[in-house]
């Protein structure tokens, strides 16, 4: 079986790629997708740590092993769906106002 380190290193690598994309790209759609990449990387790390540190569950009703990391990843997925829905609505609204999807041309409050 594979130890946990490759998973964590892969997760950090994916997080770095997503962060660089978030900082470098100007297209708002690609920026949102880079956020998705970063959140996927954190999900991978959470699930890998849950798998490597198996502990008995603290739930009274469930006697098996703890699912804390997986439940955390599940909630991240839910929050991410909400984030994408609102973010794409904002992109559409910005496109309707300014006819652009570039983040540095969204300067209504600046000028």
């Amino acid at each position, binding site marked *: 079986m594979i130890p946990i380190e490759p998973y964590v290193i892969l997760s950090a690598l994916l997080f770095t*790629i997503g962060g660089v994309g978030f900082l470098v790209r100007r*297209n708002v*759609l*690609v920026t949102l997708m880079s956020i998705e990449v970063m959140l996927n990387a954190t999900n991978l790390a959470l699930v890998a740590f849950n798998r490597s540190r198996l502990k008995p569950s603290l739930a009274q009703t469930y006697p098996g092993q703890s699912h804390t990391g997986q439940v955390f990843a599940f909630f991240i997925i839910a929050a991410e769906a*909400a984030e994408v829905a609102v973010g794409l609505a904002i992109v559409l609204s910005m496109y309707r106002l300014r006819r*652009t999807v570039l983040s540095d041309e969204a300067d209504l409050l600046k000028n």
Partner: protein
Amino acid sequence: MSTLGIVYFYVCAALAVSGALAVVAARNPIRSAMGLLLLILSIAGLFLALHAQFLAVVQLIVYAGAIVVLFLFVIMLLGPSASPPLDHRGIVGRAFGGSLFALASIAALAAVARAALAAHRTMAMPAPDANLGGIDAFGTVLFSDDLAPFELSSALLMVAVVGAVAVAKGRQGIAGLSKSEKSPSHVPPHTEAAHSGVFRHDIEGVDVSSAHGIDLRVGQADGTSAEGGVVERIDADPDGIPTDRPQRPRQSGEITGAKGGPR
């Protein structure tokens, strides 16, 4: 078995990294979305290897089924303007920020990896229960211990849906709302006596539509209730542009908004 597992991990990891690179580096946002799909599929594969079967399926359904499709919808709605021509304005600042972030995180990663290797303590994973990550175990935990955050996440999703509709309709949707609130003054006076609140008789729809030359068959078809009253129909403002009533479903509002542009 062990070598098979290692090969599986490295194949999934290579696919995930190439997908992430495609997201970041592709010029066309459609290719970025395809890279995101590849990343999501390979991470679902890694979830399977990590005894998180339920999460792997959720990942496939929520991401590949909903989020990537939503991205593709928006990209295709925006058309060619979703991939604007490349110019190098502000490239120095962005490249500096990106490389600074990359250097910092790679340095942190190298420090952690070197410490882990120096400790000579590779954490071999212990054997899990057979039902770890299965839907019965996961559901039991989700509905007993984590019930409160689970319910709160439903509230979060509800607020996000309402907010997405409100933001996507935007100024135009609000203008349409105020116009349709004012619209009884445009209806001929002999029909106004029959009004009761927002409910109108379907005959009025025919009157208004024939007066402005608009075909309102859609509004009559879905709006006529069993008593013959119209609960919801397309309203017509004096310029002859059909405006949406607030009860209209979200998708048609989005499409007309994107076609119409700022008015």
